[in-house]
């Protein structure tokens, strides 16, 4: 059985706003019996303010479909239609303290039902291109149709490409075999053969400088498989360059990272701006640490120094 969060269980066992709203002036129907889940969202929208006064749902679906529908109605009650449209499936999942990867499609259904209901209220026609393919990547809820379309559109030829374009395959890797089959079929339709990569490449974070880049700089060869021992200077440069590669991403979110010192396998940094208070700092750090390990080809530990620690260091 799924590991549902307490919040999901709450909303499943005791759903809010279950049933159709009487005198609803907006209805959004998505899904179908053949898809295996369906949701009807009914809203009572105040015509003056365009505020959602009441929201109700009816769901044919699993536990998380019921919980997602309940969460959706709670999230949108009281919002204007424009505000409500800003809610996406991730908000629904977050509201529920997360959904298992295989169940993310339930939150997508919520978002779609909302869009359908708003379109219905506004008398707009919504073109629905929703097709239900077999789920290929459970971690990122990517289906067969999406993978095929992306492969064709961008003429992809490797699992890695597919991951880069669709995210499918970017986590647990258990869908790689299925992705390879799609590639095989799509390529053979073009008269080409699919050549799988002989070994799995280590996944490096985006923007991270690869060892190969160092070859150019130092004129030395560092084959990634047989990592030659780096001199201290080379090692430091590589750490710096790896951090440099990641900084723009952090800066975009109004944060930053600065290298303080390298002490053997301990790499000390300080976080700046938004990163210091960000709840995701742990994720940022483990991402950084992984990028450094990938780049250096050795196990290193990343530490964040507090202001006081930095001060003490300076005093040495």
């Amino acid at each position: 059985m799924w590991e549902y969060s307490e919040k999901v269980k709450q909303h499943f066992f005791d759903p809010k706003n279950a049933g159709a709203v009487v005198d609803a002036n907006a209805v959004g129907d998505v899904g179908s019996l053949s898809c295996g889940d369906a949701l009807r969202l009914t809203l009572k929208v105040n015509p003056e303010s365009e505020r959602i006064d009441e929201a109700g749902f009816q769901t044919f679906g699993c536990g998380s479909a019921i919980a997602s529908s309940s969460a959706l109605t709670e999230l949108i009650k009281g919002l204007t239609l424009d505000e409500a449209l800003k809610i996406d499936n991730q908000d629904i999942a977050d509201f529920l303290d997360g959904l298992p990867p295989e169940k993310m499609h339930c939150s997508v259904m919520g978002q779609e039902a909302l869009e359908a209901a708003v379109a219905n209220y506004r008398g707009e026609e919504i073109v629905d291109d929703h097709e239900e393919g077999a789920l290929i990547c459970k971690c990122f809820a990517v289906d067969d149709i999406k993978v095929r379309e992306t492969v064709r559109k961008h003429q992809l030829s490797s699992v890695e490409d597919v991951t880069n374009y669709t995210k499918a395959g970017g986590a647990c890797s258990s869908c790689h075999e299925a992705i390879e089959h799609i590639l095989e079929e799509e390529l053979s339709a073009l008269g080409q053969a699919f050549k799988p990569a002989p070994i799995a490449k280590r996944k490096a974070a985006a923007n991270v400088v690869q060892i190969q880049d160092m070859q150019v700089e130092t004129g030395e060869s560092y084959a990634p498989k047989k990592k030659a021992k780096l001199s201290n200077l080379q090692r430091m440069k590589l750490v710096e360059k790896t951090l440099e590669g990641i900084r723009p991403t952090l800066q975009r979110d109004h944060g930053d990272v600065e290298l303080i010192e390298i002490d053997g396998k301990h790499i000390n940094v300080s976080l700046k701006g938004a990163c210091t208070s960000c709840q995701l700092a742990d994720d940022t750090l483990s991402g950084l640490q992984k990028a450094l390990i990938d780049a250096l080809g050795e196990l290193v530990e990343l530490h964040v120094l507090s202001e006081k620690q930095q001060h003490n260091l300076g005093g040495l």
Partner: protein
Amino acid sequence: MNDIYMDNNATTMVAPEVLECMLPFFCEQYGNASSMHSFGNKVGMALREARQQLQTLLGAEHDSEVIFTSCGTESDSTAILSALRAQPDRKEIITTEVEHPAILNLCNNLELQGYTVHYLKVDKQGCLDLKAYKSLLSERVALVSVMWANNETGNVYPVETMAAMAEAANVMFHTDAVQAAGKLPINLANSSIHMLSLSGHKLHAPKGIGVLYLKRGTRFRPLLRGGHQERGRRAGTENTASIVALGKAAELALAHMAYENSVVSKLRDKLEQGILQAVPNCFVTGNTLKRLPNTTSIAFEFIEGEALLLLLNKQGIAASSGSACTSGSLEPSHVMKAMGIPLTAAHGTLRFSLSRYNTEEEVDRVIAAVPGIVQRLRSLSPYWSEGVQSGDAEFAPIYA
């Protein structure tokens, strides 16, 4: 109040007698059965006894026809791959649409490797068409693999007849008897079945132990090569405690078979009737005349299985669903699809599978619990409206 376990086709409780007899093999009798010293010898003797207990359960002619494996899946894979390797000029397999994934996924994969797999269709009751089967038998076929009983519906297939037909056409026959072993009488000595798979944890032995029966004289290629264990047919140090446990479980299964087929099957019938009478718009899937004594699969229209399971679980009742939603796909199970169960009902199937440990009081409690749960979910469902019941599709989703 105790929780009620009615998911015995998924796995079973280890019988207390079985647990008791396996424990010494973890501490006192830890010898390697292949060793020459007395530590090993004693264990070797216990293995021989277990092999004979399995021989008796299966009605096999020789105890050497019993090969211990790690599970039903390993036995299935060994059987199919062995048949293909032993007969390299035969490139076809016959199986059914309703097999367990242990067979289906392997066959799908073999298709990618260039083999042709014929999947026999089933009718609305889940029954096979033997004429269609006969027409497929030829010297191109390396193996027929048909389950003895279906895990979802409990349907029992005429494997002995089918094996005889295969033999007449000079084709090897394997059966996945994971659900049947221990519940139905089996007599392999008098059958044309060449290979049979069973799994310990479905008959009150622990998980991680299985058997492949291999009729003497059948051409064979081992899956695991290495040491000379199991006469070189399955290398790897024997899982002695579990083997001994399975032997005991086989003995107990035989002793309780009459009880399973009388008392347990009556309990199952009571449960089924109780639910059918109390809940509108539901029906039993599969062939009720030829099925396992412990299984019933009931389809409830307009609701989805996982939600049913979660609410049952809240009331301390463990069952299982024929909706594959639990696997992340939104499709109803391949068995329900193969039988053509309408989508309005295929998503909402519940399977109750009993064991000799279930009681009448438990059955009564389940009968009391189910109607309320079904009603509650139907009240949430957009399809459960007068409109749909009277055939007027009031609910019109945009991408139906």
